[in-house]
């Protein structure tokens, strides 16, 4: 290197006391959030330790839940949580997305705005109210539907079982209604946020309104729509009260929609206060831990999915 080689230095930042103080306060706030999350994981792990050491990985695949014999397997609850949430999304996504498209693209906005507001209000209804409505209104109605289907297609395993209304189908329906506002209102906003130029480009090519919505509009908005679905899934996985009231609370795994089930959050709500044995309590805490991990995994997966589509779309470059 020649003697004339330039030397680059980083300028020392100026010391500003007020900035330092503000930074410290903000850092403390951020750290406490992370700290709480870590603490939650640690406390749950410690509480679950006896069950963890006794059952090991068998806890996750065990199908028996017998507090008397102190034999605990969490699979029926994991299955119940996943199945009811999946069922809920299966019903809520098409309806919510349809409502969002209708509100964003078909209805005039002076009419769509108040309706969207009312949909958002649905998200504020306490879940126990949904549960009561489920018990008194939805379950009897579902029982009639189940009877109708059972008489005709009862031989199909999916529709076998007693048509009593209580069960996996009722849980899915109640959850679907509860998560619908998230999907509808977030999707509507995502569709409204698509630049007008996108729709114009499609229309100018001679596309119909429906082709324009189905093509560029939904493609552009898919990130936001996916976000709404993930939020809905998070709510469905953790929902306790309403599901507990309608799912039947029987720890079994059945392909039939008409059979009762049990979810992780429901078993916690039902049994925690009455858990006597050390192992019983530890098993319940481990279920809480599994639920936490599952929710974190689902959210992380959804994050990756959203980042993936964003990177694929190259939207950060805009």
């Amino acid at each position, binding site marked *: 290197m020649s003697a004339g080689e330039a030397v680059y230095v980083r300028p020392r930042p100026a010391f500003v006391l007020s900035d330092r103080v503000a930074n410290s306060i903000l850092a403390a706030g951020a750290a406490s959030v992370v700290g709480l999350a870590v603490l939650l994981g640690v406390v749950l792990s410690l509480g679950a330790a006896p069950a963890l050491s006794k059952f090991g990985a068998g806890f996750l695949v065990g199908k028996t839940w017998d507090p008397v014999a102190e034999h605990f397997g969490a699979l029926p609850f994991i299955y119940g949580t996943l199945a009811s949430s999946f069922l809920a999304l299966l019903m809520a996504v098409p309806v919510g997305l349809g409502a969002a498209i209708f509100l964003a693209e078909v209805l005039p906005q002076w009419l769509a705005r108040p309706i969207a507001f009312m949909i958002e209000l649905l998200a504020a209804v306490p879940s126990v109210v949904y549960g009561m409505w489920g018990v008194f209104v939805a379950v009897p109605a579902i029982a009639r539907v189940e009877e109708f289907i059972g008489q005709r297609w009862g031989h199909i395993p999916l529709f076998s079982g007693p048509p009593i209304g209580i069960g996996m189908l009722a849980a899915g329906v109640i959850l679907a209604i509860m998560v619908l506002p998230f999907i509808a209102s977030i999707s509507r906003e995502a569709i409204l946020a698509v630049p007008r130029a996108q729709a114009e*480009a499609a229309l100018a*090519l*001679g596309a119909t309104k429906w*082709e324009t919505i189905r*093509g560029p509009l939904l493609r552009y908005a898919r990130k936001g729509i996916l976000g709404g679905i993930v939020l809905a899934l998070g709510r469905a996985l953790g929902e306790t009260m309403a599901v507990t009231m309608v799912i039947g609370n029987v720890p079994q795994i059945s392909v039939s929609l008409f059979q009762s089930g049990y979810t992780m959050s429901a078993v916690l709500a039902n049994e925690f206060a009455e858990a006597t044995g050390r192992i019983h309590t530890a098993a319940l805490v481990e279920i809480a831990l599994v639920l936490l991990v599952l929710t974190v995994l689902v959210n992380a997966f959804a994050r990756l999915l959203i980042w993936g589509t964003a990177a694929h779309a190259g939207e950060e470059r805009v």
Partner: protein
Amino acid sequence: MVSEAFRGWRAGDGVVDPAGHTMAAEEVAGAETDVLAPPTDPEVCVGFRAFGVRYGDFEALKEVQLDIRRGHITAFMGPSGCGKSTLLRSINRMNDTIPSARFTGQVYLDGEPIYVPGVNIIRLRKRVGMVFQKPNPFPASIFENVAWGARVHGLYKGHALFEHVEKCLARAGLWDEVKDKLKLNAMSLSGGQQQRLCIARALAVEPEILLMDEPCSALDPIATYRIEELMRSLVPDYTVIIVTHNIQQAARVSDYCAFFWVDENRCGRLVESGPTAQLFEAPKDERTERYLAGRMG
């Protein structure tokens, strides 16, 4: 708001009955039937007849009488707010998407009126392609951007579609730059490449006319030069109509020019039109002369 784009599809019935149209008597010169008569010259591709546009109470443009020649580049020039974009967007009825837009007079495309009830807007927009001010590719792959329109109209399938996309990209002067990365997202292209992609996308539905609404205003001079070169290569296969603020651009690329001005009511008016060389060398109107000389506007 995107939703605005879908509100009004009623422009067809918003057409004012020709008989109800009002015009100053001296301009009509006692030939009321002639003002709305369709163009008879087969070389005329688009004919505006006593055409006017209102947005609610605001009169954006009125009394436009103009013929656009087939296979040439026509430039709409004038200051902001003179209605040149409104006029351009009237040709493919993109103004229909504005709920308050109302129309009077008539626009003829190949001798057929387009502001009449029952016109097939989908077919109209397939015939009249459009390129916008800011490049607006879909957030999809380069291939998909070009293929989408052709697919929507069911023009090509399978390998033929691929060949068609290649042809359109080549026609837009983009093929050599993107042939190895057709699956890449269109958003990752540069602004100039995106605009050429948008041109390829418009060509893919096999239009006869290409409308360009200030296609270079978001581009640097080199990208602008390439788009202008491309425009020259599109005639005489296509009829190109370009809106531009840029006087030099109009002089460089256009064969014919139409000059617009804003009247005292902020309403756009056509001042004069003619072959570009003639308009630039010997403008008939004083306002044209002063605008072209850069002394106002």
